């Protein structure tokens, strides 16, 4: 059974929610392809969006391993994201007030080590607390981190932020100069012209076949996307593996019933700490990517709103579901970047004598906040388990029912093959 061999059966095998999400994802992908073909969506910007979405997916994976699996209600996502971003920025940037100029790989390692140390420092006092106390305490400690970044000018440049961050592959053999060395490619889908489909009903048409130019920004974006895909792939594989291991089972037991886990002889505090540090490392990884994508970090990146974006992503996708976290990350970027367009929208209505011009500049920010708020409330009210609850992926293929009884098919193969 695989999607390539038999897509209809595979689709029918999904739950209704999964079918809906699949259709939505396919539809959205087609919409993006349409945008690319008509020239409405710049390919470099598309890749930037893809990178951003993957970054949010990475953050969601991190939070998911804390909240979704262990039930730790961590409101300091933005702080760990910021630690990752500042960690690598301060090590590698030319304007760094402390070290600076190191290879971004050094920055990556330093960021992860610092994130682990701070995760321990936050975790030691707070992980013993009741769930809602942990929420308040972690939000408070995240604010402490933000205040330190904002006010310790001699370490972090304060509110001016850190500029001059090199791209991640600076100093690498081929990859450092890859965007510049690639030739400018022009894609002309319709040779020698364009096809315009005019839509008489709405009075505007679509033009296909404009030349799409792939220049240095495109190759740079491509490089960034491959980097975050590597980060995402590694994190996804590692988290998937560990969550299916006996260690992951203990975590889920802690989430379901901590007293039970303790009664079974597990040191729940230690397990919670491991889960907290692991999740924080993944968040810091997202921060490292962000610093080398944006090439500038400022204390604004530690704003608590990032934390809540990631929470929306995790709850939307389904707490405890890694696939859900990926999906949630993409939806959050759609909200974030979609509302950005509102600022540029100007509607003008021709009402006979007077022309009414409605500008939505300045509406993007509040609309984004409103949308996030409404999604949180509706989800918790009507579908608190999220869109893609982890009913399927928590089960090893070996425990599903349709294992053949007879020895004619090797049990091992039957079990091993049906991996989602």
């Amino acid at each position: 059974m695989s999607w390539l061999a038999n897509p209809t059966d595979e689709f029918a095998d999904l739950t209704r929610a999964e079918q809906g999400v699949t259709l939505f994802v396919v539809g959205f992908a087609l919409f993006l392809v349409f945008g690319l073909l008509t020239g409405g969506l710049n390919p470099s910007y598309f890749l930037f969006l893809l990178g951003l979405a993957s970054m949010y997916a990475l953050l969601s994976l991190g939070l998911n391993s804390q909240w979704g699996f262990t039930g730790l209600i961590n409101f300091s996502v933005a702080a760990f994201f910021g630690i990752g971003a500042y960690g690598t920025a301060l090590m590698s940037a030319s304007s760094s007030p402390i070290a600076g100029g190191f290879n971004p790989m050094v920055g990556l390692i330093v960021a992860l080590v610092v994130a682990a140390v701070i995760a321990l420092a936050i975790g030691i006092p707070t992980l013993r607390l009741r769930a809602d106390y942990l929420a308040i305490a972690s939000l408070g400690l995240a604010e402490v981190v933000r205040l330190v970044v904002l006010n310790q000018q001699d370490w972090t440049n304060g509110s001016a932020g850190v500029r001059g961050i090199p791209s991640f592959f600076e100093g690498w053999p081929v990859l450092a100069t890859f965007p510049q060395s690639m030739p400018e490619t022009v894609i002309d889908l319709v040779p020698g012209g364009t096809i315009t489909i005019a839509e008489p009903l709405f009075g505007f048409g679509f033009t296909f076949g404009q030349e799409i130019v792939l220049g240095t920004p495109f190759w740079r974006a491509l490089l960034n996307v491959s980097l975050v895909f590597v980060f995402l792939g590694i994190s996804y594989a590692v988290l998937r593996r560990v969550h299916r291991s006996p260690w992951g089972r203990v975590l889920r037991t802690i989430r379901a019933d901590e007293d039970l886990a303790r009664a079974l002889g597990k040191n729940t505090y230690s397990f919670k700490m491991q889960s907290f540090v692991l999740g924080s490392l993944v968040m810091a990884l997202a921060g490292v990517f962000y610093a080398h994508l944006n090439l500038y970090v400022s204390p604004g990146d530690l704003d608590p709103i990032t934390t809540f974006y990631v929470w929306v992503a995790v709850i939307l996708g389904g707490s405890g579901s890694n696939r859900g976290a990926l999906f949630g990350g993409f939806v959050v970027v759609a909200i974030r970047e979609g509302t950005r367009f509102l600022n540029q929208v100007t509607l003008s209505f021709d009402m006979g004598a007077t022309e009414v011009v409605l500008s939505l500049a300045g509406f993007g920010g509040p609309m984004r906040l409103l949308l996030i708020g409404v999604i949180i409330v509706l989800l918790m009210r009507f579908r608190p388990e999220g869109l893609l609850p982890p009913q399927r992926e928590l089960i090893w293929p070996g425990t599903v029912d349709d294992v053949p009884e007879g020895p004619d098919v090797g049990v091992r193969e039957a079990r091993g093959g049906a991996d989602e």
Partner: protein
Amino acid sequence: MPLLDYLANGLIFSSIIVLGSIGLSLVYSIADFANFAHGDTMTIGAYTALLTFGAVGSLGGAVLGLPFGFFVALLAGIAVAALVAVVTEWIVYKPMDVGSIGMLITSIGIAFIYRAILQLRFGADFTRYDVGALRPIEWLVPYGIRITEHDVAIVLSAAILVTGLHLLLQHTDLGRKMRAMADNPELARVSGIRTDRVKLWTWVIGAGLAGAGGVFLGLYNQLSPRMGFSLLLLIFAAVILGGIGSVYGAMLGGFLIGMINQLMPILTDYGIPIGIEYAEAVVFVIMVVVLLVRPNGIAGEAT
């Protein structure tokens, strides 16, 4: 001697924190969740007062440098904050079937909705009430205290509200029921208390006090859609310090947190190099320490 000045300012700031933390503590104990929308309820009160004050104007006379119209605006702020909270409880919280963590997350969504609506109407910038800034009270200046009549009005109004709540809790039927519910909701229900009605009144009182706190916060500083949310963590710290579920603990915690926050400059005066920009950080660290050492707060009972 700037110490007196710090103390005076601490008292004013404490009044605002106390008004916020009582409501948070009441809702925490009776509705049984950490309400992250509480700070934005304060903001609603502040902006309602801004609108009302703009509409009714000065209305003749003045008390303590504040025109009568401002007190009308204060009442409007209290009423609208309470109304919004009750409507939210009806539409959102009451039909919900999730645990206290689910409620907590929902309240974050509610907070965003409140703030977004205010931002759509008023923009994200700072504004202030249209009351003239006052000079510090003359006869206090020689003592090094620089406070205005507005500040006195804040402290007095907060004192009146808190005293009113105390009388309500101790000497009325509703107050007794609320205390019973805060103590043990299950026992209260089986004793024949109509818990739904008490819960509704808790929202009214808690959000009303928050609205008043928001109005005063706008008078003390400025108004911005973020004002309440920025104060929320301090209020949580106050509630935790005092002991969740104890109204009097919340008063004490609010007083202490407000004081600590405003007394921070003393540390630098005495050579401890922690600047005022870290006032909030120090408060949060105190909060975490309290949680570790005495999770039930100063006034809470040990379990």
